[in-house]
Structures are given as structure tokens and as C-alpha cells.
């Protein structure tokens, strides 16, 4: 087993073993759990960096590939690999978990119990990372479900006032989706000319047109439901604000940072390449739902009184742009989607960290109660919130811009097959609405900044003199701030990695 | 002899036993109807043994087995009924509805 083959498995298993180790830390010195979890997450991040460094950027196709039989009888094998599309998200998940480990040195919500919390977090990390490297439908599904359990407990135990409701809603809703997805996977397994769950093989069948159009329509619908609930796309989004409002800060960061991306990644990895004809049929629908999400998310943000719920709804809007990029079925669109995923992960992760700290300092997240003037009471916290909010509204020169503008670019002329099907004008109308969406996004973010950051601070906070950003928080946030500012002027950090593989996958649509 | 006769007799016994099983209020009487059904089964066994007419007399051997098991079952049944009686002081089927939701 050379390093080449075992690298990913090692990186994915480390957090799992870490979770067990953290859980076994004796009750007496519970704080050792925090340092142990931190060491493990740093180790995981270091391994993922090693993979990043060892990755051949220009090359196309799978690297670090390991394909070992798992359940031969059913044709399921442990096929893990990494390519341009999954590498950014894979490394981002390790980064965010490390930052969460740092952040949770002082910030574990009230039932405390760091051992349980941190082991759940590391378990979550295994699920997330595994999802991006799985190249076998069943393995993908296992990691997909594995993620739900720790997140359910995180929200259910360490959450806000009505956490039970939110946790159950999140769990059941996503589970419902994944049931349809599983049925679709099995359907694909049985109708594939040669019975296999291997994604690469299925992609070749898909490209060769082995699946009948009628079948593809139903299989795509199943997968679409599973993924759309996770993304979340427009009508299936109602679990997200509840989950975020109740989730602990670390839970929200990982939920928004990575879990949402598993849905969109699923589209790019499984739905589009394996069922290309159905992808062309569903693309307009996905496009329309995406633009509705953009406009709808922005409008709902205008109505929010809770800062964290506002950020949650903004995620719905941003994921709308990502899905618009995917709906165009063009390499530019998919590049835009992946860039949007990573940028959203970085920015919204930071926003949730900030809202957690605001809750910690001001004991409230209701914008009216915050009363404004945060730039006076806690200037550094205010400045960071301002910077991240402006990055989130898509200011060019910061990370949020490229995801949106490239999606609009792709939407202007979608894939040739979509044009032949006569959807050209529809996608151009969608593009215009997307552009209008950016104004609405700017609107609610600026309005939020005005009510929270600007104006005279209420006397209550001036007397309370909340403590400004501490060293632990700086440690947790510095990488995110650097990434937000760096990804603006240097988008090649991500597009250079994803470009080769995206062009390869998108050839199926005449891209 | 026509095979149909004993079989009809068995069917008759079985149905009457079933009726008794369902309608009787007293647990012991339910057991009695159960006995009837068991008896019907043994008739069937013997009849089918006779139809097959094989050397191994499986029909009759199994009839014996069924009888033995029937006896054991009735023994345990009565023991359970006694236990219920001791807890509920009544053997009326309707009272023993602990399984009600």
C-alpha cells in the first residue's frame, strides 16, 4: 500500500479514530479532550495539505486512487480517489474542522461536555471528507448518511431553545430525500449493462448512452430529490433556517460550510455525468428553482429579525447561484459552482463564527436588541462582520464575486444541447434575474450592517463593555479572513485545480 | 372408503373448534376448543397417512407426535391460566387486555 494509495483512507480514518480517542478521555480531566481533538484536527489538516501538495494540478482524471473489493457479492467496492472537483472541498472540510476545534476551546454551548461534542465533530468530519472522495455509490451513500447522525445530536443537545424540533426536522427531511436517492442508486445498479456501483464505470455508461431516456428521467428525479433537499433548493429549504437558528456555532459553521456542498457536489459528480440526457431535461427546472432561490432568499432575508437566521437565508440565496451555475451544464458554470461552494463555505463559515461570538458577547442575536453601534462597542468584531458581509454580497476583489459572475456568464449561453432544446432565452432571462438578485443581496446585507454596525450604540452595551475579539478567536478566524481576501484577486487558486476535470466531465454536453 | 369422509369430519371439528376459540369468554373453555382443533388435525394426519399408504406409517407416527405436543401445550396453557388468575383474579379474556394500546 504505497502512500499514493493509502493517503486518502488515512486522512479520512484519522478523525474517526480521533473521535473514539476523544470519547475515551477519562471524565476527570475533560479538558484534555479539547487539546486532543485539536491535535487530531491539525493532523487531519496537515494530511490533507500533504495530499493537496502532492496533487498534480494540471492533470486530468483521478489521483490517489484505491479500488479494493468491499462487498464483492453485490459489486460494491471501496473505491476512493480524488480529482480536481473534490480536492478543494476535501481540504476545506479539514480546514473548517481544525478552526472549529480551535474555536471550541472557549465556546461550547451550555451542556458543555466537550468530550461528546468534539468526538461528534470529528465523526462529522469523517463523514464529510468521505463523501467527497467516495467513487462508489454505496460508499457515497454511507458517508452521506453518516453525516446526519452527529449533526442531529449536535443540534439536538447543544442547540438553542427549541432544538428538538429543529434537529428532528433536519434529520427526517434529509433522510426522506436520501431514501429517494437510494432507490435511484439501486435502479441504476440494476439497469446498468454490467451490475456495478462504481461511479467511474457508471459515468462511462452514462456517456455511452446505455440508460434509456425514460429510465433516466425517473432515476434523475430520485437523485434530484435527495440532493435538492440537501443543497437546499428552493421549495425544500425550510429546514435550513430552523437548523441554523438552533444549531451551536460550530454546528452551523460545518453545516453551512460543508454539508450544503455535499448536495451540489452530488449533482456534479453523480447526477450530471451518469444521467446526461435527463440532466438536459431537468436543467431548465433546476435553473428556474435556482433563480427563485436567489430572489426568494434575498427577500426573506429582508424580513429577518435574528442575525443568524438572516445568514441562513443568505445561504439559500448563495446556493441558488451555485445551482444556476450547475443548471447551465457548461464548464464555466460548473467551475463557477465549485468556486461558489468554496467561497460560500469560507465566507458563511466566518459569518456563523461571528454570529456565535456576537451571541456570546451580547447574549442576543436579535438585530433590534443589538441596536447598532457595534463599530463603537467592539470595533474589531464590527470590522470583521462588515468585511465578511461585504464579501458575502459579492464585492469584486473578495471571494464572493467570482461564484456569482461566472454563474451569470455561463447562464448567458448555456450548453449547446440546451440551446438546441430551445432554452436559450429562458437562461438569458434567468441571468438577468440573477443579476437583479445581487442587488437584493446587497440591499439586505447593507441594511443589516446599518442596523448592527452603524449608528450610536445603546447605553446598555456601552456600559456592558463587551470584550472584543480574543486571541482564540483570532486563531480560529485568521485563515478564513486571509482566504476571503486572497480568493478575490487570485481565483486561480481554485479554478486552476478544477478546470481540467470539469472540462472532461462536461464534454458529454457538447461543452 | 372415500378419503373425503374423514377429511370432512376433521374440517367440521376444526371449524367448530375455531368458533369456540373465538367466542368463549372463559380461558379454559378456549383451551378446550383448542383441543378439538388439535384432534381434527390428528384425523387429517392419519387420513393422509392412509392415502399415501407408505410403509413408514408417517401419518400415524406424526399423529402420535401431535398428540404428545398437544398434551404438553395444554399443560403449559393451564399453568398460564392459573398465573393470570392469580394476578387478575378472573380468567375472563376481556380483562386480560394488557396488550391494549
Amino acid at each position, binding site marked *: 500500500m504505497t502512500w499514493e494509495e493509502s493517503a486518502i483512507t488515512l486522512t479520512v480514518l484519522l478523525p474517526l479514530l480521533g473521535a473514539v480517542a476523544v470519547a475515551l478521555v477519562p471524565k476527570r480531566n475533560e479538558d484534555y479532550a479539547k487539546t486532543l481533538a485539536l491535535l487530531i484536527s491539525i493532523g487531519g489538516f496537515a494530511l490533507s495539505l500533504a495530499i493537496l501538495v502532492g496533487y498534480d494540478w494540471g492533470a486530468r482524471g483521478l489521483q490517489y486512487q484505491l479500488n479494493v473489493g468491499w462487498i464483492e457479492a453485490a459489486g460494491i467496492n471501496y473505491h476512493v480517489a480524488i480529482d480536481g472537483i473534490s480536492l478543494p472541498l476535501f481540504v476545506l472540510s479539514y480546514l473548517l474542522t481544525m478552526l472549529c476545534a480551535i474555536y471550541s476551546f472557549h465556546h461550547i454551548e451550555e451542556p458543555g461536555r466537550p468530550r461528546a461534542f468534539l468526538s461528534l465533530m470529528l465523526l462529522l468530519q469523517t463523514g464529510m471528507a468521505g463523501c467527497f472522495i467516495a467513487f462508489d455509490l454505496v460508499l457515497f451513500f454511507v458517508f452521506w448518511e453518516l453525516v446526519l447522525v452527529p449533526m442531529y445530536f449536535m443540534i439536538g443537545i447543544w442547540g438553542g431553545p427549541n432544538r428538538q424540533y429543529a434537529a428532528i426536522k433536519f434529520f427526517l427531511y434529509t433522510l426522506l430525500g436520501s431514501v429517494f436517492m437510494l432507490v435511484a442508486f439501486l435502479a441504476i445498479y440494476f439497469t446498468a449493462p454490467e451490475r456495478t456501483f462504481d461511479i467511474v464505470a457508471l459515468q462511462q455508461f452514462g456517456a455511452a448512452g446505455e440508460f434509456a431516456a425514460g429510465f433516466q428521467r425517473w432515476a434523475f428525479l430520485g437523485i434530484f430529490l435527495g440532493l435538492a433537499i440537501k443543497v437546499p433548493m428552493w421549495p425544500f429549504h425550510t429546514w435550513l433556517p430552523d437548523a441554523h437558528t438552533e444549531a451551536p456555532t460550530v454546528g452551523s459553521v460545518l453545516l453551512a460550510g460543508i454539508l450544503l456542498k455535499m448536495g451540489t457536489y452530488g449533482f456534479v459528480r453523480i447526477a450530471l455525468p451518469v444521467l446526461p440526457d435527463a440532466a438536459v431535461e431537468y436543467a431548465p427546472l433546476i435553473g428556474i428553482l435556482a433563480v427563485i432561490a436567489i430572489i426568494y432568499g434575498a427577500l426573506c432575508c429582508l424580513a429577518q429579525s435574528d442575525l443568524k437566521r438572516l445568514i441562513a437565508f443568505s445561504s439559500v440565496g448563495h446556493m441558488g447561484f451555485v445551482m444556476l451555475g450547475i443548471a447551465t451544464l457548461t464548464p464555466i458554470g460548473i467551475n463557477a459552482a465549485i468556486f461558489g461552494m468554496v467561497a460560500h463555505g469560507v465566507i458563511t463559515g466566518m459569518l456563523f463564527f461571528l454570529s456565535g461570538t456576537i451571541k456570546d458577547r451580547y447574549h442576543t442575536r436579535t438585530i433590534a436588541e443589538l441596536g447598532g453601534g457595534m463599530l463603537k462597542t467592539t470595533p474589531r468584531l464590527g470590522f470583521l462582520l462588515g468585511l465578511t458581509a461585504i464579501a458575502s454580497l459579492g464585492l469584486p476583489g473578495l471571494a464572493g464575486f467570482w461564484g456569482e459572475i461566472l454563474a451569470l456568464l455561463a447562464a448567458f449561453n448555456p450548453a449547446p444541447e440546451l440551446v438546441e432544446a430551445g432554452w436559450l432565452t429562458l437562461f438569458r432571462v434567468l441571468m438577468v434575474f440573477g443579476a437583479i438578485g445581487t442587488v437584493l443581496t446587497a440591499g439586505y446585507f447593507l441594511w443589516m450592517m446599518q442596523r448592527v454596525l452603524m449608528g450610536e450604540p445603546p447605553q446598555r452595551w456601552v456600559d456592558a463593555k463587551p470584550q472584543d475579539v480574543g486571541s482564540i478567536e483570532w486563531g480560529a478566524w485568521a485563515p478564513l479572513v486571509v482566504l476571503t481576501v486572497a480568493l478575490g484577486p487570485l481565483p486561480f487558486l481554485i479554478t486552476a485545480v478544477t478546470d481540467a476535470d470539469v472540462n472532461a466531465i462536461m464534454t458529454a454536453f457538447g461543452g | *372408503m*372415500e378419503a*373425503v*369422509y*374423514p*377429511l*370432512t*369430519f376433521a*374440517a*367440521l*371439528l*376444526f*371449524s*367448530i*373448534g375455531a*368458533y369456540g376459540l*373465538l*367466542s*368463549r*369468554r*372463559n*380461558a*379454559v*373453555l378456549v*383451551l*378446550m*376448543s383448542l*383441543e*378439538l382443533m388439535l*384432534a381434527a388435525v*390428528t*384425523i387429517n394426519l*392419519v*387420513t393422509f397417512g*392412509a392415502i399415501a*399408504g407408505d410403509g413408514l*406409517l408417517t401419518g400415524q*407416527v406424526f*399423529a*402420535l*407426535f401431535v*398428540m*404428545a405436543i*398437544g*398434551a*404438553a401445550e*395444554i*399443560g*403449559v396453557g*393451564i*399453568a*398460564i391460566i*392459573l398465573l393470570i*388468575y*392469580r394476578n387478575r*383474579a378472573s*380468567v375472563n379474556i376481556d*380483562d386480560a387486555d*394488557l396488550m391494549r*394500546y
Partner: protein
Amino acid sequence: MTVPDVMMLFVTVLGGTAALLVVTSRNVVHSALYLVVALLAVAGAFLTLGAEFVAWAQVLVYVGAVVVLLLFGLMLTRAPIGPMAQGNELGRALPLAVSIALFAVLVTLIFQSFSGTTISLTHVSPAALGEVLYVAFALPFMALGLLLTLALIGAVVIARREEGEGPLPEPDEEPSDAAALREPTPSDVSTVPGRPAPSGEREVSA
């Protein structure tokens, strides 16, 4: 109509009426006795079919042991000797329908598949049966013995009364927990299904 046919007809009629009486008689002890008649009719049937040993075994096991056991059961559970009130009407409609339907189905099936097949009423001597029993079916036979002893021990364990138990509750006064058992029906949808634990020493899990 040969002699065995007549014999079988007679036994069927006898057995049928006896069974009916077992099931419908008011008096508990009467139904026990009718049970004896029914089982004897069954033994008669065996005789006509030539299974002599099985017939006598039937008489010995069922009529001798089982019915007596049932009588003991009746006695121990203080079943009312006299005629007791019959259950409600609804309690009889469903069983009646089911049993009649059952009988009809069985009979049609029997006539469909077995009409015309005749059976040879050769007399099977107990010796032949014994020989088969102890050679081909030796193992099952021993297993049966084991089963019977286990059943015996089980029955004893269940029916034995622990030392600490109080006196046998009188049948007429309502035991304290019985009332508790008749709690309101599950009207409150949201609580987890299951009964509130009754008072008294037994813990009834949901």
C-alpha cells in the same frame, strides 16, 4: 356404503354434535364432558381408519389426561359451576362468520382435490407401528420425550406460588390495580404510546 362408511358417518355425526355442544353449552362442566364424547368419537374414527394404536393413545392421552387437567383448571380458577351469562352478541357474530367460512372453504378444497381418492383401511398392528417408531423415528421420539419433560417442568415453575405472595384475592372484590388498568383510552396523541406505570409491585414497560 360399506360398514366402515357407516361407522365413519356415525362417528362424524356424534363427534360434530358433541363438539357443537362443547362450544355452546352454558354449563362449563357440561362442555368438559361433551369434550370427552367428541374425543371418543375421534378415537372411533381412528379405529375405522385402522390406526388402532393411535386410537387408544388418543383415548388415553386426551380423554384420560387432558380433559381431567381441564376440569382441574376449571376448579382451580373457581369457574362458576352453574350456567353463566353468555358474552355479548357482537362477540359471537365474527367468530360464527369466520368458522362457517372456514368450514366452507375447507370442504370445497377437500372435495376439489380429494374426491374420488379411496383409502385402503388395512389394519395396522401396534407392533408394525412400534417397529417404525423405534427405528426410523427414533431420534424425533427421544426429542419428543425431552420436550414433554421440559413442558412439565415449565408448567410447574409457572404455576408455583412464590412464598412472599399474599393470600389469593377473592374473586368478587375488585383488585386495587385492576382499576388502574382501565385508564382512559389513548386520547392524548402526543405522549409516547404506553400506559402510565400502575401502582403495585409490577413494572409494566410500554
